[in-house]
């Protein structure tokens, strides 16, 4: 029986197809799947590329760090999942030059110092003299690496010529940080002493990966072949060695391994990916993903509207068919089956066709955008194809199957009494279920619950509010006593249908405006978060008595004088008088936070770039109060009103948390998790730190700074900034490219909306023609109707896009947003012009049609 029904269904589909009944629905579905797969595939490639680039900062996708030799079980688990692994060992050690050099050499080797009038020869000599005992030794971070290191990213070295390293240092040689070369006055080919070993400096490290995080362990790096480690004699009981297992490979395998490892992790071990390790990158990546999610959602919204309209038109047109089938003896189940098979068949072909279009378009987009082509994006995965296919079918069934469910209940009596429509009863539950499916789909496509809920809420709110306002507006307009107000009265008479059309057009328009104007504004605002002069150097370990000379140095070098932040290191030992330890926290991140020392600072005012999210800022610096970053507060379960006890160099203090702050990690400014009132900390011995911008032509000044203040650590964050900028730019280009395709979906919505209006207009026009209306009257009538519909839709679109844009900026992307008046003008004007033009094109032939033919065929 099913086979016969399927055959009948197929025959009917074929015949309906020939008559063009499925065209709009198919077009809407192909565009829906096409746009979702284009956006999905494109976004997937960009996401993968961003992730890969970001992971170069870690040297791997995942890093396990342990104070003991990495368990062979971990290595085996990684290898079993076909993941690439490499191990490294990191520890601090003193390094010295193998040969002493003369003072004259110091000066002659550093032409910048010898030429610089700001630093006198006496200063250089005195520094040399003062440090003569230890001038040839320095604390370094030794990193012994195995073959294959790094798994992600590239190390750039200078061994006479600057190039990307293709292997690790040969045995007996090391690659060293530029700071070490400077401090020990080394040259390539010189030798250094490391433990029992004497190693040749084979190259200077120009760009490194897997940098240590945090300021404490930031010492110049020496990269060593792991096979030399044992003979160095440095690996002994009690050595402060951190063993690392670097892992890279397929994202899902990596994530699987991460879960596997998380269950087995010992107290002395931790897992990190680039997001854990670099909050600036995490913020940028998350924002990028939200942007991509927003673009994907916009495509889904537009596709949904187009499909809903097309399905509605299809169902209305097939009421008679259903009634006839029922009259001829088809059961309700058979009617449902006949249409369901048709929809599934159509869905199947539309999905395949849409995916092919999606794949081709995204490949084309990548080829046409130079930056994308050059970026050599990784191949897309299969996930976006599945996601688009399933979403397409879910949308089709969500919007078409439910009306179909009603269609099966069409009374066969309709063949006699045509006024009988679709029974309304018992559909609440079905619509509820359909709504749940669509909500799930939205959240899935958004990739973020928050973004999904906001857009979903915006959409649902838009549906209700736009619908109500449209209906009210049409009624109000019809009351205007204008001569020839037939058009407005007409619109008001079909208030529900027209309100629905306005809602559809508004939602489509809202999505388009969101993706054009709001997207541009949001991206610009994101860019300004990281201006060209964003700090790219951190200076740590500034002593109190160095503050003034340091600021003088900045002035002398014509570098903008930065603000110095005091820092005291303290350990959190109790929350609300309850002593805490790492064991209290199952979360590895929380555990590591409790086990290490915090960088505490104090400030009278809320530090710039920080945002108060809860509580109050202190009024008096003499108070005892603490301000905590909201993320860390959540991790450690700290709330306003809690009392935290810190141990600073053996003495303890307690204070109440009075506010929570939000930090903008990607601002590259100095940020502190915990800030105290001055009264609490200013009596402790503090060091200071700052961040500043050093332009390319000021690099030598940076070298001089370190030479003049040898105890300072200068951290170069250029690579991170470059990475964040890269992410912003890639996303800007991606979203722009995606927009082109989404525009097509928007036009499909418009087309579907206008076609939905067409049937009724044709019938009405035929009646008016019969009653003697001329073409001029009809044209005026239609144009007035379209202008009003378009302008109202445009107004709602602009209002919706502004509101949604603001909510997304504030709640999801966490960037400022100021809507422009252009958005409103474009919305209203564009809506009126586009709807009028498209409406006129769709109905112009109606005016020339024989009214008898129209009335006979209807």
């Amino acid at each position, binding site marked *: 029986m099913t086979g016969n029904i399927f055959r009948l269904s197929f025959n009917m589909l074929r*015949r309906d197809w020939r008559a063009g*009944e499925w065209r709009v629905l198919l077009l809407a579905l192909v565009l829906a799947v096409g746009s979702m797969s284009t956006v999905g595939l494109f976004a997937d490639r960009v996401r993968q590329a961003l992730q890969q680039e970001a992971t170069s900062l870690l040297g791997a996708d995942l890093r396990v760090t342990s104070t003991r030799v990495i368990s062979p079980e971990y290595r085996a688990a990684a290898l079993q999942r076909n993941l690439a692994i490499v191990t490294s060992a990191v520890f601090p050690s003193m390094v010295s030059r193998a040969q002493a050099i003369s003072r004259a050499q110091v000066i002659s080797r550093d032409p910048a110092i010898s030429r610089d009038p700001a630093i006198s020869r006496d200063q250089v000599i005195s520094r040399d003299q003062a440090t003569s005992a230890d001038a040839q030794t320095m604390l370094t971070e030794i990193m012994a690496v195995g073959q294959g290191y790094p798994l992600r990213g590239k190390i750039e070295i200078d061994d006479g010529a600057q190039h990307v390293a293709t292997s690790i240092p040969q045995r007996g040689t090391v690659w060293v940080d530029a700071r070490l070369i400077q401090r020990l006055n080394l040259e390539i080919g010189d030798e250094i002493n490391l433990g029992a070993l004497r190693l040749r400096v084979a190259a200077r490290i120009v760009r490194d990966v897997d940098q240590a995080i945090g300021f404490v362990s930031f010492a110049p790096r020496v990269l060593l072949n792991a096979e030399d480690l044992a003979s160095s004699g440095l690996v002994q009981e009690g050595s402060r060695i951190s063993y690392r297992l670097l892992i890279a490979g397929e994202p899902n395998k990596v994530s699987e391994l991460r879960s596997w490892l998380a269950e087995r992790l010992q107290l002395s071990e931790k897992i990190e990916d680039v997001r854990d390790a670099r909050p600036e990158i995490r913020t940028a990546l998350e924002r990028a993903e939200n942007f991509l999610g927003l673009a994907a959602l916009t495509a889904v919204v537009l596709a949904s509207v187009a499909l809903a309209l097309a399905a509605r038109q299809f169902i209305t047109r097939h009421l008679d068919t259903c009634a*006839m089938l029922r009259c001829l003896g088809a059961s309700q189940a058979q009617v449902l089956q006949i249409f369901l098979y048709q929809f599934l068949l159509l869905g199947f072909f539309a999905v395949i066709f849409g995916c092919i279009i999606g794949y081709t378009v995204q490949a084309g987009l990548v080829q046409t955008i130079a930056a994308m082509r050059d970026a050599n994006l990784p191949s897309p995965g299969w996930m976006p194809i599945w996601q688009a296919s399933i979403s397409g079918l879910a949308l089709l069934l969500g919007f078409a199957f439910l009306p179909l469910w009603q269609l099966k209940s069409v009374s*066969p009596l309709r063949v006699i009494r045509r006024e009988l429509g679709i029974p309304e009863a018992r559909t609440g539950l079905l619509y509820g279920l359909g709504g749940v499916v669509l909500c799930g789909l939205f959240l899935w496509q958004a990739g973020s619950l928050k973004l999904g809920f906001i857009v979903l809420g915006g959409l649902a709110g838009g549906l209700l509010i736009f619908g109500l306002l449209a209906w009210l507006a049409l009624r109000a307009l019809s009351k205007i006593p204008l001569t020839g107000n037939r058009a407005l009265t007409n619109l008001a008479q079909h208030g529900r249908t027209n309100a629905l059309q306005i809602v559809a057009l508004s939602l489509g328009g809202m999505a388009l405006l969101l993706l054009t104007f709001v997207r541009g504004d949001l991206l610009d605002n994101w860019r300004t978060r990281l201006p060209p002069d964003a700090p790219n150097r951190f200076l740590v370990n500034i002593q109190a008595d160095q503050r003034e000379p340091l600021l003088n140095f900045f002035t002398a070098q014509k570098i903008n004088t930065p603000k110095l932040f005091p820092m005291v290191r303290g350990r959190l030992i109790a929350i609300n008088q309850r002593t805490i330890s790492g064991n209290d926290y199952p979360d590895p991140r929380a555990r590591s936070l409790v086990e290490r020392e915090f960088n505490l600072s104090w400030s009278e005012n809320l530090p710039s770039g920080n945002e108060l999210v809860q509580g109050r800022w202190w009024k008096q610096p003499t108070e005892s109060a603490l301000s905590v970053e909201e993320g860390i507060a959540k991790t450690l379960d700290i709330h306003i009103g809690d009392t935290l006890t810190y141990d600073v160099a053996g003495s303890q203090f307690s204070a109440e948390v009075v506010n929570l702050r939000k930090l903008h990690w990607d601002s590259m400014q100095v940020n502190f998790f915990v800030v105290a009132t001055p009264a609490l900390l200013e009596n402790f011995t503090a060091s200071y730190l700052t961040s500043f911008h050093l332009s390319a032509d000021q690099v030598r000044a940076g070298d001089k700074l370190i030479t003049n203040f040898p105890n300072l650590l200068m951290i170069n964050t250029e690579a991170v900034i470059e990475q964040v900028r890269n992410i912003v730019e890639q996303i800007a280009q991606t979203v722009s490219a995606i927009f082109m395709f989404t525009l097509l979906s928007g036009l499909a919505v418009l087309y579907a909306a206008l076609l939905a209006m067409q049937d009724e207009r044709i019938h009405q026009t035929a009646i008016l023609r019969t009653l003697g209306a001329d073409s001029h009257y009809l044209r005026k009538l239609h144009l007035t109707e379209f202008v009003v519909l378009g302008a109202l839709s445009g107004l709602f679109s602009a209002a919706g896009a502004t509101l949604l844009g603001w909510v997304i900026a504030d709640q999801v992307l966490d960037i400022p947003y100021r809507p422009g008046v252009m958005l409103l003008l474009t919305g209203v004007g564009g809506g009126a012009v586009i709807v009028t033009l498209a409406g006129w094109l769709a109905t112009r032939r109606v005016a020339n049609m024989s009214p008898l033919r129209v009335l*006979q065929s209807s």
Partner: protein
Amino acid sequence: MQAENLGKQVESGGQPLVILHEINFSVKAGESLAILGASGSGKSTLLGLLAGLDAPSSGTVYLDGHDLSTLDEDGRAHLRGRLAGFVFQSFQLLPALSALENVMLPLELHTASNLPAINNHSISIQERASQALQKVGLASRMTHLPKHMSGGEQQRVAIARAFVGQPKILFADEPTGNLDANTGAQIIELMLELNRAHGTTLILVTHDEALARRCSRQIHLAAGRVVI
């Protein structure tokens, strides 16, 4: 066919509105019955109840020995598929289907429902539909769509569709209502001729006295009641 105490009542503006009131009559196999009445007398509603297109508020209809009130919507549809044919005032052809395809539709539905094969097993559905169209004089218009046919031609297609399944009973609702007098006369002639040839029972709703007189029996409806 037998109607027993058949009544139909609907809600209108919160008030009950009686459309049909205790209708009783029976029709023998092969007989033709005309239901006459002015507009709003309840003729079409009665036809809908007799054909099982709608459920009565009271009373019952027996069709070929089946009590329609014991059947659900699908049961009645199944019975219609097996026993009944329809001709309507507004033709009710599917606009996307050609004349031939419209006539094929009940046979295809019959096959899809796995009902016993109608008549000759060896002839294909298409062949049988084609023969039905030839009988109504539309051999040359088989591939035409309804919108390209005149009202008379469309009604002929509807008649071919009604008879192709060789129904035991034919329900006709104002079959000439949308046609001019001349075409109407031709259509009614064709319908009665096929009726006789197939020995089909005919239930005809009309307000045309002359047309009604061509049926073996007539009943008159006024304000939802049978009047003598």
